[in-house]
């Protein structure tokens, strides 16, 4: 029995406070995933709270024989993100995270331009491609885990990721040619 499974048993037996371990372990990956998918800094923490609340309420339905806990939690986050994307307002580039360590102004300007182009490229990806890309590139999940989260075959995930990467690579190429 893993440490995580033990914690889940404790929670199901009434030790509510143990759920804090789950929240503290997964808060960053879940918030990051949601933020990269829906691209709205204000609402992503509220959605993430909803993810944990739903996970708590449905914890009894988690079956360790069918998936890892993290896969199960990411599936809830994926569903909440899809719902949020249906309601979301457009986001301006200034809302996107910016943390540059470039040294001179022209480097910084070029970097911002590249980042802006990549941000726009990511934002423009079809929803399913974007989710697969975010899960593999930012959360380092395996293709098998992503396929389980998305409820599709591994081959489908591979092709979604390849297409997403090609589109982002093209976005980068275009801006280099323009320069």
């Amino acid at each position: 029995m893993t440490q995580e499974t033990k914690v889940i048993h404790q929670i199901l037996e009434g030790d509510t406070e143990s759920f804090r371990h789950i929240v503290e372990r997964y808060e960053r990956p879940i918030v990051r995933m949601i933020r990269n998918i829906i691209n709205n800094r204000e609402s992503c923490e509220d959605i993430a709270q909803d993810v944990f609340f739903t996970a708590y309420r449905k914890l009894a339905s988690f079956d360790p024989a069918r998936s890892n806990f993290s896969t199960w939690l990411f599936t809830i986050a994926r569903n909440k993100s899809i719902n949020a994307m249906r309601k979301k307002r457009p986001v301006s580039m200034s809302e996107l995270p910016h943390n540059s360590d470039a040294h001179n102004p022209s480097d910084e300007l070029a970097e911002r331009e590249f980042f802006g182009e990549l941000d726009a490229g990511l934002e423009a990806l079809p929803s399913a491609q974007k989710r697969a890309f975010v899960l593999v590139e930012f959360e380092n999940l395996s293709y098998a885990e992503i396929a389980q989260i998305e409820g599709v075959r591994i081959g489908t995930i591979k092709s979604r990721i390849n297409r997403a990467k090609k589109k982002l690579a093209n976005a980068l190429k275009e801006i280099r040619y323009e320069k």
Partner: protein
Amino acid sequence: MKSEEIYNAWKERRSQIDLRESFADEVMSRIYRYERDKGRPLFDGQRLIELISAHRFVKAGVVTAGVVAGLARIMFVVYNFLAC
């Protein structure tokens, strides 16, 4: 800058998140509230007040119902007065 460097820098930038410190506390307090409410009867007075004040549409509905009931009462009194 090479494409790969740009890409990695971009990935790193998007991986950084500034999560508010109270995040876990907020989740836990919502869960404790949920647990507390689970044990309470569905329609006790306190819960009804909390329910009404938590949703603005419910609040608006209650106010509208109050206004309609008040108007109906006034019309009933006026009608009875005129009927005399």
